[in-house]
């Protein structure tokens, strides 16, 4: 559904502003200036959205986690602590920036800057509205996957250059994990691409709009894979092993101090926000919400869904312990990859049936949803039964000595009695 070029003050289609500007520039200037201007406007727009959002989200994350931890959270700077992120940023900027003497200077200085490149680029293909994305690429999904792969390299550079073992551990872990978890993420997106028949991010939203359904209902397993794979790529719990603070201090950014650390931190949050937005776009309908987008600015709908997903990420972080590297790996390769392949086949089959047999989507999609939820549930159940180690199913109560006391002999008696229970 293409809205007509609206008035510039109509918030439903911010694209109108940039269109006005480019048309105005095209009147007098060369067209390459116009394309550069649109690019700049798009980048500024993205920054204008994620910058303030980030500040609010830092506050939100601290506040929500504080509530989960039976604390109050920041409440001193500004009303209800809202200015706390600003104070943090100021503090970080004022701090001394140290570099280890043995660090590889250039490779050490570059990553905090470079890591912003994929973090900003990734927003380029996100549709904030029907025609509201910086670049509505024909291959937006592929772009997303390719760009998020670059992140790994920057993190590796950061981890390697510090000449710090914790950092190198973090770098090695992040590479191993990101490479592994890219596969489930790609598989989950591929299932969507197969099913909707488009590589464009906006195309997937439009498909959901045309069929009046969110893809989360049809592909729950893909959603789970995307969510969990993203936590692994974003280094958030339960997969934050690359900066596991109790093991390797801060992982790949151990030696970064001051605002350099602040940049890593900001990018981590920005990436989380971006992945939340992409999850909302792929699986929750993006800017579309059953016709509500006619009345409310579409980017507000997207932001609301993004906030919901961001809350899920905060929730995960506040509640879950961390998995070990080998456990994460085996979970990826033994569960996600096979299940992802199964769902790839399922998506392809269902798409073919839908097109070849000409079924009515209104009838077919609910059936598909039921089937896919069934397969996903069965997969999870089978994995939980077979792959989980038998030790994990031991009872979660200790043996009670019941008056026995003593050393090895009593221990043996207790064990015998306990095994008889």
């Amino acid at each position, binding site marked *: 559904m293409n809205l007509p070029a609206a008035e510039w003050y109509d918030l439903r289609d911010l694209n109108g502003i940039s269109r006005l500007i480019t048309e105005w520039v095209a009147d007098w200037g*060369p*067209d*390459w200036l116009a*394309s*550069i201007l649109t690019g700049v406007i798009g980048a500024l727009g993205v920054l204008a959205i994620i910058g303030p959002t980030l500040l609010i989200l830092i506050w939100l994350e601290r506040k929500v986690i504080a509530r989960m931890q039976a604390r109050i959270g920041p409440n001193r700077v500004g009303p209800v602590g809202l200015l706390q992120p600003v104070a943090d940023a100021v503090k970080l900027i004022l701090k001394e920036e140290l570099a280890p003497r043995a660090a*590889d200077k250039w*490779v050490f200085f570059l990553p905090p800057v470079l890591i912003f490149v994929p973090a900003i680029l990734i927003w380029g293909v996100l549709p904030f509205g029907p025609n509201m994305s910086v670049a509505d*690429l*024909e*291959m937006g999904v*592929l*772009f997303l*996957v*390719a*760009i998020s*792969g*670059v992140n*790994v*390299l920057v993190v*590796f*550079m950061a981890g*390697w250059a510090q000449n710090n073992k914790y950092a*190198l551990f973090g770098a*090695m872990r992040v*590479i191993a994990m990101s*490479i592994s978890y*890219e596969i489930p993420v790609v598989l989950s997106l591929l299932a969507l691409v197969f099913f909707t028949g488009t*590589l464009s991010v906006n195309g997937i939203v439009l498909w959901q709009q045309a069929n009046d359904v969110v893809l989360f209902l049809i592909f729950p397993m893909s959603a789970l894979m995307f969510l969990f794979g993203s936590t692994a790529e974003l280094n958030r719990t339960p997969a934050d092993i690359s900066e596991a603070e109790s093991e390797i201090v801060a992982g790949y950014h151990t030696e970064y101090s001051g605002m350099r650390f602040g940049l890593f931190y900001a990018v981590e949050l920005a990436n989380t926000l971006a992945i939340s937005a992409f999850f909302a776009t792929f699986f929750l309908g993006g800017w579309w919400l059953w016709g509500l987008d006619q009345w409310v600015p579409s980017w507000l709908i997207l932001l609301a869904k993004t906030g919901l997903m961001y809350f899920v990420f905060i929730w995960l972080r506040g509640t879950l312990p961390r998995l070990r590297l080998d456990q994460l790996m085996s979970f990826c390769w033994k569960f996600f990859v096979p299940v992802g392949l199964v769902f790839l086949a399922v998506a392809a089959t269902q798409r073919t049936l839908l097109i070849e047999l000409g079924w009515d989507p209104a009838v077919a999609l609910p059936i598909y949803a039921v089937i896919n939820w069934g397969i996903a549930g069965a997969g999870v159940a089978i994995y939980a039964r077979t792959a989980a180690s038998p030790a994990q199913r031991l009872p979660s109560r200790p043996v009670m000595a019941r008056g026995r006391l003593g050393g090895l002999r009593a221990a043996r008696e207790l064990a015998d009695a306990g095994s008889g229970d």
Partner: protein
Amino acid sequence: MSDVGFHLAFWSLSALTIGGALMIIVSRNLIHAVIFLILSFIGVAGLFITLSADFLALVQILVYVGAIAVLMLFAILLTPRAARDNEESLMRYPAMILMGLVIAAGVFVALETDWGPMREGAIGTQAKIIGESLINQYVLPFEIGAVMLTAALVGAIALARQDDEDLPIHTASLIEEGVLPPPDGDAADAPAGPGDDS
């Protein structure tokens, strides 16, 4: 896109590509060399975009930057005792002559050949065309490519896998000492070392 923007893009990307490649020769550190290689790859991806081959540009970034470069970094880190420098052997001078010859020949051929009629416009929806030709016209090479990738995967795993006798030297000595359980044994059954505390 107009000429100016196009020229700007082409020349800067060419400089990036070739400069990155030259820096691989110059840089003394293997890890720096890989980083410059990545720069070169990204330049090539940009050149692909100027050739309106968007799909290939993304595949280039995905495969070369995201996978091959990372594999190389991994391999460098996993061969720690090997020399880290990126030195050149005595083949340098013949290779340099050969490089000059190849450049000369390439430039000569490029400039002197009549390439026939040039097509002006770019082709859209490349992903669709490439995808369809892959499963229609080129389905056999496609399948062979898939089999080859699988074979390479299996082969690489088989090559790089460590056998038990390849365990690091002092892991083996610790197993002998009884501190470590044997590779297939149960950790709880390992006999305790004589002084197991510190």
